[in-house]
């Protein structure tokens, strides 16, 4: 049992690297996508809506297959890890854009009025008034999404990234002790997911107090 756990845990750096890089890239790219989604210029808005809709309506596994096997067979060859980071980042950026948009919609319109009354420019209004509050409101959803992304990273095992699900699968095929092996893998996901959820609750109660209503 102990050796099973030790073998599986060796995949943990890959799981963490995959989740963190996809989340960071998604959180950065999500902002311009959200702004494009809110653009008044129709072609920009339509492109953003189409991007978000398409990305979210196709399963993660299919994205990873298209990038790894599809593009890989004749276009651009990626390593499994690169392909997984690209796929998960694209999906994360679309989802983060929607999370930011949800946060933005909850900001009281008085905040825009006040910024206009102070004669702040568009950039200052967004950067100094709206965004800090949006970030605080969006944080719990973003944390929930980060846990979702952690679980989604298991799909990368299918294209051969040696993270914990992949090691669990290999081990189960050698030892025929699938119950122990996948029980351990499941426990690792739950144990990593819990502190993220707990931290988000703590951060939420601290930050929410700083949002004007």
């Amino acid at each position, binding site marked *: 049992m102990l050796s099973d756990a030790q073998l599986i845990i060796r995949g943990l750096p890959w799981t963490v690297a995959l989740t963190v890089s996809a989340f960071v890239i998604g959180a950065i790219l999500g902002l311009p996508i959200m702004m494009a989604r809110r653009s008044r210029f129709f072609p920009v808005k339509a492109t953003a809506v189409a991007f978000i809709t398409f990305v979210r309506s196709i*399963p993660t596994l*299919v994205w990873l297959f298209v990038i790894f096997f599809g593009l890989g067979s004749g276009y651009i060859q990626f390593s499994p890890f690169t392909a997984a980071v690209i796929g998960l980042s694209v999906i994360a950026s679309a989802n983060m854009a929607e999370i930011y948009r949800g946060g933005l919609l909850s900001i009281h319109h008085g905040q825009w009025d006040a910024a206009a009354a102070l004669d702040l420019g568009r950039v200052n209004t967004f950067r100094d008034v709206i965004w800090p509050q949006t970030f605080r409101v969006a944080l719990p959803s973003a944390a929930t999404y980060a846990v979702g992304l952690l*679980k989604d990273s298991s799909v990368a095992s299918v294209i051969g990234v040696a993270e914990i*699900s992949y090691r669990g*699968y290999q081990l189960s095929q050698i030892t025929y002790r*699938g*119950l122990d092996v996948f029980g351990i893998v*499941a426990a690792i*996901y739950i144990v990593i997911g819990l502190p993220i959820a707990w931290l988000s609750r703590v951060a939420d109660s601290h930050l929410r107090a700083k949002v004007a209503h």
Partner: protein
Amino acid sequence: MDFSPETMAGWLPYLLGGLWISLKVTAGCIVFGLPLGLVLALAVSSRSPLLRLASLALVEIGRGTPGLIMLEFVYYGLPQIGLTLGTYVAAIAALSWTTGAYTSEIIRAGLEAVPFGQRQAAIAIGLNPLDRLRFVILPQALRIAVPALLGFAILIFQGTSLCYAISTPELISRAYEIGANTFQYFPVLVLAGMLYAAISIPGSLIVGAIERRMGRHAMR
């Protein structure tokens, strides 16, 4: 890369057969997972600590574990204790657990959203606890939960793609198989993606419309 309409049309019947299997697995998950979710939602708020703890454990494991691991646990894990399931049964069993865990939270939110006065009124007219639940609380709670439940149905439909890992011959397994045989991975995988989108996008639009419609009549 062969994107010609003739080739695509040649693949389509086989892929549509796979899509049909994906939809059947989705239906199975809803048929078994939704009642499970209802039971779990009620058990989590039960007065018996044992029942509460057991149902909470089922919910947290179902929500905290990736769908892929649930599938592999059931398909590759249960044979260890002498329980070997076919790929369809394993797929539906594993994803029904996931469905039950997530829908129990949705239904619980629905139950909590029913105004307290409804319960008081039901007690006042002398309904017993079962009838209170059956005729007063549940009909209102489920109505509140409908948009979120439908939204989850679309997610579980996308989740059936994970059944590739336990070789259920559903849409993405078949697309991969065609890719491996013809080496036309890119066109066939893109086509499979489009077929998923062809279900998910209208599905989300319908859910959005229902949500807006129900929002208009929501009781406050």
